[in-house]
């Protein structure tokens, strides 16, 4: 390991000058149920370095950082700070040791001023605050800092960049000397991001602090970080000095360069007419921000179009819009050139089916039974319903038994609450419901997220089978491997728009990765 050596070398540097902490996390393992989120990951941050933590979504970056910060406890593994073994049982321990974290979203109290936020964040904030004394202390503190943020106005009135600076100032004020930043620039404009990262880089160069930054933006890594570690599927797959690596190397490490192993059975067929067409879709999210920014895409019969992209670029919102969970602010969804509204009649008549991400949250009622959940599409049609309103449980249960057998859903009985099933079985139950009929359009989002290999293969071949039968399939996925395996064409989504479309044979990982990262 590099760290102990670095520790030993430390006394050679001017001791008073090095305030930055070195961190050595070794052999960290953390599992959630059957999911191995961190698999024997070792990770070293030298004092005064600016360390980038790279990886796709679900690679384990956040889990690793949360284990370090005491939010989770790793099942095994050891932490050392400046060479000394430490135990971090909760976030308070981490804070006492000088570890601070900046989150993706702001944690300041919006109605208080910057000064108030700083003072109340102190663990030893007195019950009665002598503001005169505190203001003086703050002024002294700011004099030592390389950057400033307005302290006398409510945080709510600050720009995002200033808020982020204040978040960082807060950690420095609390005398935290190893800062962990979780995608700190996702809420900033490029200029604000450059300014703040530049300032932090300056502090690390002066050995005042060490920085660990979770990111997936290669540009920020090459411009500001000096070291990097790459995680993929819970494993440490590479790392080293930034200057020794190209962004191509990083992309390959992130998404893996293993060739596609077994494709689901794909029949060669000529694709049919355009079935699903998205025309200039616009939608708004929180604070009236455009989350979909003119999405244009066509899906033809008998093809799978995979939408790749870094998480949070509008994929979830696209899925919500298509399944009627979020209104469009502008644009049109066309099915076979006819305008489409997401109503029950339209879903039924046009044979549109969907498999949203996190099915327990988006596609089931956890406390209703498996049979009832499987009947969501058909409860108001014969034989489940007579006269259009009278419900019969018997045919519902009988159909559920067939589906449970056909899709190998493991459940005690059709009457078991679906919330009691494991993730893979919930996914299969929903799949059974959505794919058992005649499917014309299938819209799928992250269908295999968090599932084991067997379920993944199963579910992917089901999706492929629908394509082979002539359905138009839109597959939104954060797993590039999945898209490369299944899709006939790939589209990249970035900042709420489709920025790149190519047939799968005419593109490669690196090109897709570049477009995903938002610069190409």
């Amino acid at each position: 390991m590099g760290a102990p050596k670095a520790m030993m070398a430390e006394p050679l540097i001017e001791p008073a000058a090095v305030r930055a902490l070195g961190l050595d996390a070794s052999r960290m393992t953390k599992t959630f149920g059957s999911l191995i989120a961190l698999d024997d990951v070792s990770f070293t941050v030298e004092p005064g370095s600016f360390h980038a933590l790279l990886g796709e979504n679900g690679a384990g970056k956040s889990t690793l950082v949360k284990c370090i910060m005491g939010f989770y406890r790793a099942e095994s593994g050891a932490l050392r700070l400046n060479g000394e073994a430490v135990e971090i049982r909760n976030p308070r321990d981490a804070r006492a040791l000088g570890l601070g974290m900046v989150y993706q979203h702001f944690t300041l109290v919006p109605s208080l001023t910057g000064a108030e936020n700083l003072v109340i964040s102190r663990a030893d904030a007195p019950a009665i605050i002598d503001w005169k004394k505190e203001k003086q202390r703050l002024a002294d503190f700011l004099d030592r800092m390389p950057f400033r943020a307005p302290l006398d106005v409510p945080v709510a009135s600050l720009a995002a960049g200033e808020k982020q600076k204040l978040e960082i100032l807060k950690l420095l004020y609390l005398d935290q000397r190893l800062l962990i930043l979780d995608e700190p620039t996702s809420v900033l404009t490029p200029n604000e991001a450059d300014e703040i990262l530049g300032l932090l880089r300056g502090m690390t160069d002066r050995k005042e602090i060490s920085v660990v930054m979770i990111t997936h933006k290669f540009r920020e890594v090459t411009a500001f970080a000096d070291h990097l570690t790459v995680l993929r599927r819970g494993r440490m797959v590479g790392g080293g000095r930034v200057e020794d690596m190209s962004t191509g190397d990083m992309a390959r490490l992130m998404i893996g360069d293993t060739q596609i192993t077994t494709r689901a059975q794909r029949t060669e067929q000529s694709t049919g007419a355009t079935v699903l067409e998205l025309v200039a879709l616009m939608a708004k999210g929180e604070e009236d921000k455009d989350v979909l920014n003119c999405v244009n895409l066509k899906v033809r019969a008998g093809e799978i179009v995979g939408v790749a992209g870094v998480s949070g670029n509008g994929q979830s919102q696209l899925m919500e819009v298509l399944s009627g969970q979020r209104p469009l602010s502008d644009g049109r969804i066309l099915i076979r050139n006819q305008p489409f509204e997401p109503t029950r009649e339209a879903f039924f008549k046009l044979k549109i089916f969907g498999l949203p991400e996190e099915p327990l949250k988006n596609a089931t009622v956890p406390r209703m039974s498996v049979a009832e959940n499987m009947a969501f599409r058909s409860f108001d049609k014969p034989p489940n319903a007579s006269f259009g309103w009278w419900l019969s449980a018997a045919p519902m249960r009988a159909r559920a038994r067939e589906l449970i057998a056909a899709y190998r859903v493991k459940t005690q009985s059709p009457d078991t609450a679906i919330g009691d099933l494991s993730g893979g079985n919930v996914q299969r139950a929903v799949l059974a419901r959505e794919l058992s009929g005649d499917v014309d359009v299938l819209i799928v989002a992250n269908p295999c997220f968090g599932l084991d290999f067997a379920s993944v293969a199963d579910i992917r071949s089901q999706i492929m089978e629908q394509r082979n039968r002539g359905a138009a399939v839109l597959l939104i996925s954060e797993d590039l491997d999945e898209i490369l395996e299944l899709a006939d064409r790939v589209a990249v989504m970035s900042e709420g728009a489709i920025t790149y479309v190519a047939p799968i044979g005419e593109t490669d990982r690196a090109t897709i990765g570049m477009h995903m990262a938002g610069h190409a």
Partner: protein
Amino acid sequence: MEPSPWRGVLQRLRRDSEYIAIPVIALVISAVAFSLFLLAIGKAPLVFFELVHRGGFGSAFSIQNTLQRAAPLIFTALAVAIPARIGLVMIGGEGALVIGGFTSAAIAIPMLDRISPMPTLMIMALVGALTGGVWIGLAGFLRHARGVNETISSLLLTYIGIAVMNFFVEGALRDLTNPNKPSTKPLGDAYMVGKIPGTDVHWGFAAGILIAILLHILMTRTTFGFAARVTGGNPRAAMAQGLPVGKLIVICSMLAGACAGLAGFFEVAAIQGRANASIAAGYGFTGILVSFLARHNPIAIIVVAIMFGGIVASGGLVQRRMDLPDATVLVLQGMTFVILLVSETLYGRFAFFRIDEGRDRT
């Protein structure tokens, strides 16, 4: 792997017994806490419970008195239970009761002695149910269309409802021949809802049971109820199924308001004979407690409403014999409600009720 069909049923029974066990335990704890309260003010708890038993269920007379008071509780509890099925916490039953009772009394005024009693009562009931339905329907509509918290808006609508009634009863619609309490013109004996034959209990009790059963069937055996349960259990899933979430919310709210409006109608047409401040007797609020204790199950509501009807009915006896103020019963209700809400957090915490599904981690 084909498990025997009985195993599932037995497991369900065992799991569902949690829904009875926890409220019963909460009731017992409430009784203990209330006993401590009585001891603290120097009264004997056993005497209290004995009097509740005697005053509520001790004799044919007291039982009939109890059932009489259970009738509005069934309706107002349904007014909480139906919205609860679709995920709303509506607590405005008192307001819908008052506005329904008042409008049914008001519509009757021009009809008295012109139209015969039966059609008059039918129209009164219809109007009461309709205005009550609009009242709570409004809270549901605001929730769906504008995101207004339905709990708060329905509660505030209660105060508006009471004020509207007072405005008319003390003004334009005041019966000037009655010098005591501001009231609407009395219906007169001929226009009152009668008693169930052989008892002293008015037909409202039977109507309450009938409607509770009908609503139970609606919510469990029809496509409407299925859609409502999907919406209540997970609105996002309901939207993804293209269910008309807004329509379902408004209809369920209107059904709830109609129930509370009917409670008001029976209070006017079977008990008071006129609309005045007496119909705002707190049945709407007690109904909230009844519904929560019955876990929003319409059939269970009938049983729990009778129990609380007994407590309400014994109030007078307790007051006289133990020299306790009328509010004592409210203390008991308040304690029960708080303890009940705490008990809601205990579901799923006891290993006995959990079924080991042999969860394969696949």
